[in-house]
C-alpha cells in the first residue's frame, strides 16, 4: 500500500485511496479487485501504471502518445475478451514494475519521469529486471505490453485504441472510406505532411 504522504497532488490522493481500498477489498474478501470507473478489468492504480508504461513505449510529442490515444482502454477491453488468458500476466507485471519503481526510485512507476521509466523498461527488454519480481528478467512482460501497445495505437479505433485516428493522422493516411463513395481524398482529409 502506498503512503499518501509520499504523493503530491489531489487527484492522485484520490486514486491512491481508490487503489488502497480496492487492494484492501481484495485482501479482505478474496474477491477480484474492482475495476476503475470506465474500465472493465484494470484497477485505477493498474490503469495509471499501464498508462505510464505504454506512454514510455509510444511517448507523446507533437502527436498524441499511447495513453491519450486510448491504448490502455484497448488493452483493458481485450483483457476481458481476446486477451483473457493474459489477465494474470498483466496483474503480476503491473504490480511488479510498481514495486520495483518504489524500491529503486521511491515513487510509483506512474510518477517517474520518462527517462527513468525508459531505464526500467530497457532492463526488462534485456531480461535484466530483478528476478524476484520478474522470473524471466522481465522480457516476456515487456514483449507482451509492447505488442499490445502497438496494436492499440496503430489498429482500428473500433477496439478502443487509436482514438480519433491519432496514429493514422500522424502518418498521414485517411480514415476508412464511406461505403458507396468512389474513393476518398487523402489531401482533403489530412493535409499532406512531409
Amino acid at each position: 500500500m502506498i503512503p499518501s504522504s509520499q504523493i503530491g497532488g489531489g487527484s492522485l490522493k484520490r486514486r491512491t485511496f481508490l487503489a488502497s481500498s480496492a487492494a484492501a477489498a481484495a485482501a479482505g474478501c478474496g474477491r477480484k479487485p474492482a475495476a476503475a470507473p470506465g474500465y472493465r478489468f484494470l484497477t485505477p492504480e493498474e490503469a495509471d501504471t499501464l498508462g505510464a508504461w505504454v506512454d514510455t513505449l509510444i511517448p507523446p510529442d507533437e502527436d498524441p502518445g499511447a495513453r491519450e490515444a486510448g491504448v490502455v482502454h484497448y488493452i483493458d477491453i481485450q483483457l476481458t475478451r481476446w486477451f483473457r488468458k493474459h489477465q494474470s500476466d498483466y496483474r503480476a507485471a503491473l504490480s511488479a514494475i510498481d514495486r520495483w519503481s518504489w524500491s529503486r526510485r521511491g515513487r510509483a512507476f506512474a510518477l517517474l519521469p520518462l527517462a527513468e521509466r525508459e531505464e526500467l523498461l530497457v532492463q526488462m527488454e534485456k531480461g535484466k529486471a530483478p528476478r524476484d519480481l520478474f522470473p524471466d528478467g522481465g522480457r516476456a512482460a515487456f514483449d507482451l505490453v509492447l505488442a499490445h501497445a502497438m496494436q492499440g495505437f496503430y489498429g482500428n479505433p473500433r477496439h478502443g485504441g487509436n482514438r480519433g485516428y491519432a496514429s493514422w493522422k500522424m502518418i498521414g493516411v485517411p480514415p476508412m472510406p464511406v461505403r458507396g463513395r468512389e474513393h476518398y481524398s487523402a489531401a482533403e482529409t489530412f493535409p499532406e505532411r512531409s
Partner: protein
Amino acid sequence: MPLPKVDAVIIGAGAAGPIVAKELAFVGWRVVLLEKGRWYTPADCRKDDLRNQRNPTLGYPFGPEEEGNPRVIVELNGRERVVKPSEPGYNNNAFCVGGGTLSYGAMAWRFHPNDFRMRSTYASKVPRAFENSTLEDWPIGYEDLEPYYEKAEWEIGVSGDVSGDPFKGPRRRPLPMPPLPPTREHEILEKGARRLGLHPFFIPMLRNSVPYHGRPACMRCRWCVGFACEVDAKNGTQNTVLPMALATGNLELRTECSAKEILVDDHGRATGVAYFDREGRLWEQPARYIVVSCGAIESARLLLNSRSRLFPQGLGNRFDWVGRNLQGHTYTGANGLFEEIVYDDLGPGASIAVCDYVHGNPGLAGGAMLANEFIRLPYQFVSGIRDPDVPRWGRAHKEFVRRAYRRIIPVQGPTQEIPVFESRVTLDPKIRDRFGIPVARLSGYRHPHTIEVSEYMAERAAEWLRASGAVKVWLRRAGRGLSAGQHQAGTCRMGRDPKTSVVDPWCRIHDVDNVYVVDASVHVTNGAYNPVLTIMAIAYRAGDHLAREGRRA
C-alpha cells in the same frame, strides 16, 4: 443417417470445389457441396486491421473458429505445440464458402511452363536441389492446363496486362479486363526495373478493374488482402461459379458441415461421405463420386481419417504418400526507404511484377516472381517492415514510423520450394477436434536449396529497389521451418506411378475409382507464383473430365 444418393458430393467450397460443382451441375448432375465454414457476403467486410485473414491478432473473421479446431505443430527442435487457429504455426488459410478466394489478394498467375518440369529442367544443372528432395516433373504440362487457365480468367474474371512479360507461356486470348491505373509505387519501380534491363508489367488479378459480370470495379481502398471486398469487386468462387451452379437447381450447398470420413465398401469403392452438421448430428451422404477439395492440409487429413478394412492406412495411402511433400512458398524480398513520398493510398497496392528471375538463375533450381507488396496497414507496417537499425519503441521508433510510413516500398516474391518427403501432414494420436476427429499434425522443414534460392531472390529485390532510387534497403529473409500457410500444396501428389503419387493426371486417387482430390494437394511443385489460378485451372480440367467421362446414376 443416410440421405438420398446423389451423383457427386464435393467436400470443401474453396478455390476448387465450387468450380467442379459448377462443371457437373451444368451437365445435369445432382451435386451436394459440403462446406465446414459459413457463407459470408460483402456486408461482412469489417475493415478491421487487427482481425482479418492476414492478421489474426484478434482472431480470424472467416474461419476457422478459434475453439474446437486445434492442430499440432512439431518445430525444428522437436518441440510439439497444440495450436489454435490464430496462433503461430497453425498454417491457416480460411474455412468459409469461397475459402481463401473470399479474402485473398487475388493475384492470378499462370505457372511458367518450366514450373511443370522441374526435374527435366534442373536434374543435370543443379544436382544439389535433388539431394533429400522429391523434386519431380508433373505428369501434365502447361499446354494441358492452358485452355483451363483461359476459362478461369474469363469466367471468374481477371484484370491486368501480361503482354509485357516475355517469359510467360503461350496464350490464345488476352485477359478480359485492363489493369487498374498504376500507383506511384508502380511508376517508381517501373523506372528502376527498366534501368536494370528487367521486364516489368501489370500483375494479373482476380479483381474487377471495370464492371464485369454484373459486379462493379475496385474502389481502391486499402482493406484488400485479408478482407472480403466491401463492393464485391474481388472475384472468388463464392461470387462467380457458385451462384452459377446454384442457379441450375442441380446443386445443394450445405454450410457448417464437417466431413468425418469417406465411406468405402468391401469392393474398394467409395459409397459416400459421413459428416457432422452444425448441431453435431452425424449424417451419411451417399454419392457415386466423391471430390475432396479441402486444401492441402485438410484434404490429407480427411483421406488419412478415412480408414477401412481395405485401406487401413487411409484412403489413397497404400504407399504412404498422402500428406507428404507439404509445401507453400518461401517469401523473401526487401524493403526500400525513399527520400520522397511513395505512398498514394491506392489499393490493392500490388501492381507491378517482373518474371525475369522465375527460371534461369545461375546455379539455382527455380526462382520467384517479384512484385511490390499489397498496400500496408499501419499495424502491419509497425510489426513487419521496421528498419532493423531503428529501435522497437520509444521516441526514435515513433519518429521513424511518422517519417517513413509513406516512404517505404516492400518488394517480395514467392520462391518455388523444393519439396521434401519428410515435410508432412499426419494425424495426431491424441488431439481431436470438437467432433472427436483426429487433427492434423504438421512436421518438417524447408529444403536447404529453397533457402538458397530465397536468399538470391531477396538480393534481387534489394537490387531493384536501389535501382529505383531507394536510399536505404534492408532484406526480408526466410526461416528454415515448415512451410505451408495460405499457399499450402503438395500433399496428394499427381503422378502416373501409384507407388510415388496419390492421384492420376485427372486427379483421381490411384486406388479408388470414384474418389478425386481437386485442390493444391495435387501440385507436384508449387510454381514460382501465387497458386490460385492453377488450382482453378486444375479444377476446371478435372470437372470437365468428370462431366464427360463419369457415369451418372
